């Protein structure tokens, strides 16, 4: 459905939508103007902890090779520490740094231009597939490639195909091998298969992925095991466990962001004249939060505050808790849904959707209001097919019917 057809906000007048946009602008401005040394200390502290965990984990694995008594516990502790370090690096540090959340510090290392993260996907490709494609076209079918990552049917508006019967299996594979799935995400295999990809760009991207993937494999499965000498096999297993733990965790967190009940999907018709306030609304209605303590939020890269992250992707993640209080108050004030629940429930709903949508729509009932638009093709779009936002072409858009009447 298009943003202007969403019943959750059509009760608002154009003036109210505009006022909501102004209030969100004010939240942004307040945080921007109050960024300070405490925020800088936060990200520096997280990086210090992450590097300490990574070094400690590697050392524990090494030590396990030379101590019979403490061998196994040290190995398990090492794998756990390395797993947590990888989770922190990918989620709270890498993802947020690459959004430019910490660019204002003018730090030579902690900057969106320079950060290269500990996962197989090259940072440059992540900044295109995630920062641009996903954040600009959030939950717009055919444009946001994060809707099912090109292999899962995640919306009833997407046409069913017999290949979807295997969704539970594809989902399990995607979860276990998540970093490699993400590595191929921006390559867009579907367009390569159809011969629609620029061969020069495909080659450039493939080389980037091969180089990055090779370095990741060398680091975790050759160099560090080799340093463990005779215990190379246990170090290799521990490293693999850390990587799989990171894969499963990031998969769960990411799938809780847009697939629980209440997070809406949209179609492309209204993108052409979407205004800033409508863009805000689409981000709010297409995202879902989860509840938890501070540790859970840090380990999930602050994506428990997915709504706030989509509204303000370049504001420092440590400020999301205070922003969330204000955004939730605005949702109450304007009677807009604020989708939130415990992590297990949010993921349970996403998993149920994956399983239900593996069969045709008629076999299952919808957990969301039925979209007014008919089924549409689910192929991925190229950059050329993604529309630019042209607000000068139209004013505030309400429903198609209202616009025709006007």
């Amino acid at each position, binding site marked *: 459905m298009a943003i202007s057809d969403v019943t959750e906000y059509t009760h608002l007048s154009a003036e109210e939508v505009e006022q909501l946009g102004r209030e969100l602008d004010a939240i942004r401005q307040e945080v921007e103007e109050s960024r300070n040394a405490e925020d800088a200390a936060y990200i520096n502290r997280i990086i210090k902890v992450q590097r300490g965990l990574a070094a400690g984990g590697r050392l524990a694995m090494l030590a396990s090779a030379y101590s019979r008594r403490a061998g196994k516990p040290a190995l398990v502790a090492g794998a756990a520490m390395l797993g947590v370090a990888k989770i922190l690096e990918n989620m709270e540090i890498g993802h947020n740094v690459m959004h430019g959340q910490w660019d204002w510090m003018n730090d030579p290392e902690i900057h969106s231009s320079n950060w290269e993260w500990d996962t197989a996907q090259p940072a440059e490709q992540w900044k295109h597939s995630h920062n641009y494609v996903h954040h600009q076209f959030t939950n717009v079918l055919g444009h946001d490639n994060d809707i099912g990552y090109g292999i899962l049917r995640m919306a009833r508006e997407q046409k069913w195909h017999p290949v979807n019967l295997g969704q539970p299996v594809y989902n399990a594979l995607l979860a276990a091998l998540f970093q490699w799935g993400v590595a191929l995400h921006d390559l867009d295999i579907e367009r390569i298969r159809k011969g629609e990809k620029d061969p020069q*760009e495909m080659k450039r991207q493939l080389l980037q992925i091969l180089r990055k993937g090779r370095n990741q494999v060398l680091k975790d499965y050759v160099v560090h095991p080799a340093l463990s000498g005779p215990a190379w096999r246990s170090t290799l297993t521990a490293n693999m466990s850390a990587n799989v733990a990171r894969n499963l965790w990031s998969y769960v967190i990411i799938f809780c962001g847009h697939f629980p009940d209440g997070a809406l999907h949209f179609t492309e018709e209204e993108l052409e004249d979407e205004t800033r306030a409508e863009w805000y609304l689409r981000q709010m209605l297409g995202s879902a939060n989860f509840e938890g303590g501070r540790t859970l939020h840090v380990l999930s890269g602050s994506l428990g505050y997915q709504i706030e992250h989509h509204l303000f992707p370049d504001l420092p993640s440590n400020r999301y808790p205070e922003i969330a209080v204000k955004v939730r108050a605005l949702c109450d004030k304007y009677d807009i849904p604020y989708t939130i629940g415990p992590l297990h429930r949010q993921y349970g709903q996403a998993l149920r959707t994956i399983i239900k949508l593996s069969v045709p729509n008629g076999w299952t009932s919808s957990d969301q209001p039925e979209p007014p638009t008919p089924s549409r093709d689910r192929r991925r779009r190229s950059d050329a097919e993604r529309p*630019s936002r042209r607000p000068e072409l139209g004013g505030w858009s309400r429903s198609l019917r209202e616009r025709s009447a006007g």
Partner: protein
Amino acid sequence: MDAAPRSFDALPLDPELEVPVPFAAGTDVGYGDRAPGTVLSVRDLDHRRVTQCALSRTCGVCGAGLGRPLAFLGSRRDADRLAFRFPACHVGCALALLASYADVTEPVLGLDTAPGEWQVVTTASFEFVRPGTDDVDRRPTFQPHGLLSTTVL
């Protein structure tokens, strides 16, 4: 990512003004705002590419990932109000573009003034501000958070 980055020397030329067409102005016909059958032009920016550059953190001139510091190119007015229309670029790309446009005497790339009056400023960070309904100019702006340096030719 569909369009591969190009080095400054490999940028296509505007057939009318014979100056390099930067990534943000649309370097490929049949892509973004440059519909099939049209010609490349530096008269205006490609809206889709501008958004792509802003969010993907790529250079508005060559299309490759940005470096540090970030350079913005614009009129004196843009610099004074800290709101630029042209996306962030590499410092080298911005200066090369400025030099190659030195003989152009009319406003291009969607800027209000001719290249002779442009400035290059550097910064560490920026905010991408989408236009609101009240804005007279309905194009997004890049608003740096403070300047590190200013270069005037």
